């Protein structure tokens, strides 16, 4: 198993393959800034919840990197975090308060953590495995990834626990 590229996104920094990407904004606004600078042609981004925006941006930046000799595209997306889709769950809850009950379908669809893997699969045409795990530590994810069959995967930690509180550390990994 070989890690070809990695990215770490905090609420105020982005480090791609060890090199920082200078950003002006922080938090959710930083994700929008990254979208405008590096993507720009996928307005569906604005419909996504923060967890999906985070995973989407990380995937965009990673999958733009040269594949280092391997030509086949990534065929699996395996992500994990501790708090599932809690931030968007709470946003959805706000639409069903008693006395002001108008449940939002557009928010409800994001009340599952694996939706971010679906967004990445749709964007990049990935028809292999997509899996989402809720775990205590990233070490547990490493054991699961090692036991998962794939040729090339986008894998890692993708967490959003509240408004402007998120963290992602994703890698592209190649087997053989």
């Amino acid at each position, binding site marked *: 198993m070989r890690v070809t590229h990695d990215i770490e996104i905090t609420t105020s920094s982005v480090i791609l393959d060890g090199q920082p990407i200078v950003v002006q904004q922080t938090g959710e606004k930083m994700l929008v800034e990254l979208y405008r600078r590096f993507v720009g042609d996928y307005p569906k981004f604005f419909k996504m919840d923060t967890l999906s925006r985070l995973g989407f941006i990380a995937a965009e930046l990673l999958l733009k990197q040269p594949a280092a000799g391997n030509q086949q595209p990534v065929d699996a997306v395996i992500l994990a975090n501790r708090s*599932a889709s809690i931030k968007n769950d709470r946003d959805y809850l706000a639409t069903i308060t008693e006395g002001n009950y108008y449940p939002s*379908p557009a928010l409800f*669809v994001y009340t*599952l953590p*694996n939706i971010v893997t679906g967004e990445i699969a749709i964007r990049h045409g990935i028809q*292999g495995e997509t899996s989402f*795990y*809720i775990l205590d530590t990233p070490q547990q994810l490493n054991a699961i990834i090692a036991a998962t069959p794939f040729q090339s995967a986008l894998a890692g930690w993708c967490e959003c626990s509240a408004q402007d509180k998120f963290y992602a550390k994703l890698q592209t990994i190649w087997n053989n």
Partner: protein
Amino acid sequence: MVYCIGHSIISPLGEGSQANVEAVQAGRSGLRLYHNRFADVEPFCASLFDTPQEFVPLCICSVTCALNDSQIAALPETIFILSTTKGDNLDLLTPAQAIVQHFGNPNPPVVVSNACTSGVCAQITAKRLLEAGLYKHAIVIGCDIQTRFIVSGFQAFKALSPEPCRPFSPDRQGLNLGEAAATIIYTAEPQPGGWKLVAGSIHNDANHLSAPSRTGEGAYRCLTDVMAGMQPADIDLLGVHGTATPYNDAMERTAIERAGLQDVPVSALKPFFGHTMGAAGVVETIIGMEILKHGTFVKMLSGFGGVNAAIRLTCE
């Protein structure tokens, strides 16, 4: 290959796999109409426990029932894998940790949250971790409890049928929700007789978050993966998702025909249990094994996020 050494279902239809199988064979359904279960929510048809259940005790009850005097839950070589979509009031990790703690198991649990396919995906994860030699036994729990949160969302999606669902009927009107806890225990140690989990596969449609693929691409790929080396005639029963929504049933039909499985008997269990979400893959695998007794059983599911999953089990 991993070996099934125990299972249980706790649902509104009964406590224990046997009680649930008997209910299905007798044609009893857990579905009924609820008018005032949750504030603001329109009346809905579902299979719910008469007394609202708490998530962690329900899971513990299901595991205890599946263990049936065996003590493997406490062994350091055992991993707990929980399949759920909304867990205990939107928290997925804490209840999993509470279950493990209850049984005195030292290993941090794995929670699989892959939408409606979670219960099949959790069994695939169990197979992988056991085959990798990381653990000797895996306790796979599937559980979801219906809440105002979930019912309101499915109503906003216009996905619920006002009456008991009719999978694959031309006049199907949508799905019913349900609640259940179910457990399957797998071991890496070869067992004489009994059911074996032989193959598993997960594929994304890469098409749409909530609308099933017109071509059934992900489900088709899952079916061909788990059937590798087999002929359609070797499959004795195909457990479909069968949500009774117009598009998902149509997608499954397309995938089944593309995989050449149109002559295989099909079972769709949502008219008995409703859609039990994280529990569905576990409940429906157990019923399939019990009704078939022996042979080859393929179980498939699909869900939000465009994900599909299938497993193949055999019993000689």
